[in-house]
């Protein structure tokens, strides 16, 4: 086996195990990230400044004292990579032949079994996300700095992204919720598996409903804001002065250091046309 031209298979091929672990791990990270993402995005419901603060936070603004949008880009790139990996691994499970598809459909109709049905929901939502998620990911990758109350609202409304986000919301929440539940029953070591599964199922549906409601409310907030801001689309948001730390370079701007922000130190607006994909 040491000889380089040996075609003997290894005694154990570890890759099926690794790929399975990788599929679960990427799913876990993506699923948890989507829930957190929703919580961050929904900060708009607490007000524009709250959302602005969250957005700048991820640009390292409160750490470095000035925003580094490429941090967001890097993070998005990582999520993109996880997404691609997860999609590639999950693709192995899809029904690839018509015969397989028909067998599953017949089975699902006959069994009327929730978890069997939910898997099909995952296939559909996963498939749809192949196409829809990259649109959003690409925008975030290339324009990380355009995350903010007005910026995002303009994207949603004036950029006509809301139909995509509306669909994506349902896809993500269903797929992620089901996927995280499935991870729990797939790997979990429960004392009473039947009772635990019942609880997990309740939790899963509860969280899905919660995030859908939260998501719809958030999207509605952005749409409303976007509608109101439509005449000034492309204008960057300026936070209310008194609550925010200085944007001075190396100014030791801790989150708690509240000071006024001279407009000159705010990054310049990109030259975007009104109504463009901001």
């Amino acid at each position, binding site marked *: 086996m040491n000889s380089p031209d040996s075609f003997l298979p290894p005694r154990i091929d570890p890759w*099926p195990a690794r790929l399975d672990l990788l599929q679960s791990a990427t799913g876990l990270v993506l699923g948890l990230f989507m829930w957190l993402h929703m919580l961050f995005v929904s900060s708009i419901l607490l007000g524009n400044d709250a959302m602005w603060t969250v957005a700048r936070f991820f640009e390292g603004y409160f750490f470095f004292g000035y925003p580094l949008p490429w941090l967001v880009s890097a993070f998005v790139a990582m999520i993109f990579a996880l997404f691609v990996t997860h999609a590639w691994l999950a693709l192995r499970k899809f029904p690839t032949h018509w015969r397989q598809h028909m067998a599953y459909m017949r089975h699902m109709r006959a*069994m009327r079994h929730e978890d069997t049905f939910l898997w099909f929901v995952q296939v559909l939502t996963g498939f749809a996300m192949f196409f829809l998620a990259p649109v959003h990911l690409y925008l975030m990758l290339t324009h990380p700095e355009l995350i903010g109350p007005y910026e995002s609202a303009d994207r949603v409304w004036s950029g006509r992204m809301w139909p995509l986000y509306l669909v994506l919301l349902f896809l993500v929440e269903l797929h992620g919720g089901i996927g995280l539940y499935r991870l729990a029953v797939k790997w979990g070591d429960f004392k009473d598996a039947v009772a635990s599964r019942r609880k997990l199922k309740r939790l899963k549906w509860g969280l899905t409903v919660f995030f859908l409601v939260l998501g719809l409310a958030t999207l509605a907030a952005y749409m409303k804001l976007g509608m109101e801001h439509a005449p000034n689309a492309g204008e960057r948001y300026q936070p209310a002065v008194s609550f925010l730390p200085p944007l001075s370079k190396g100014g030791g701007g801790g989150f708690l250091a509240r000071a006024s922000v001279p407009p000159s130190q705010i990054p310049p607006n990109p030259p975007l046309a009104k109504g463009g994909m901001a």
Partner: protein
Amino acid sequence: MPRTLTFHVFRHNPRDPGSEPGVREYQVEEASGMTLFIALTRIREEHDPGLSFDFVCRAGVCGSCAMLINGRPGLACRTLTSELPGTISLFPLPGFELIADLSVNTGKWMRAMSERLQAWVHLSCEVNLNEIEAAMDPDLAEAVYELDRCIECGCCVAACGTALMRPDFVGAVGMNKLARFRLDPRDDRSDAEYYQLIGDDSGIFGCMSLLGCQDVCPKELSLQTQIAYLRRAMARQGL
């Protein structure tokens, strides 16, 4: 006033070139305590002497009579008609070779699975039968028996979307067996050896946790737990 039950029963003899798969309807008057075994026997005796189905123990222990009862796999012999609606559809178990009508060849499938998974205790040596047997922890013995209660009825395979899409998938029955032997101190195989048997997508990593198996198993085996346990053990082999 007893109900008149309407049965929609799948009929087809794949070896008869003149036979087309179809459904025949029968009416049977319900009796108290009537099981599907009693009802089908009556159909055969009174309406259709050529109807094929498999009952052996008729007591829910041999696993012969699994079929799709209103779409779900179950043991026909211990299904009371009183628990079903007035219209009952009976189809052969999918995932297995059809013999005729409601009769499928689960035995052939199970033997092939056992051979493939080497589903038997691998002994390190023969024991001296005159000597007192090796001691075994009483709780462990009970735990092994708990997994040994599988009756190979095929319900878990027929309830598994993965198995129906991919005929080479070992199904919950196979994974439960390996979990049983892995637990058994008399089987001296290592995890690496088990991994060679099921460490791929037709084995443990093919399972998509649809849990149809867990929900239809007539013996209420802890299939979800066993599959998860095996998955964790096999995943460790990949690290």
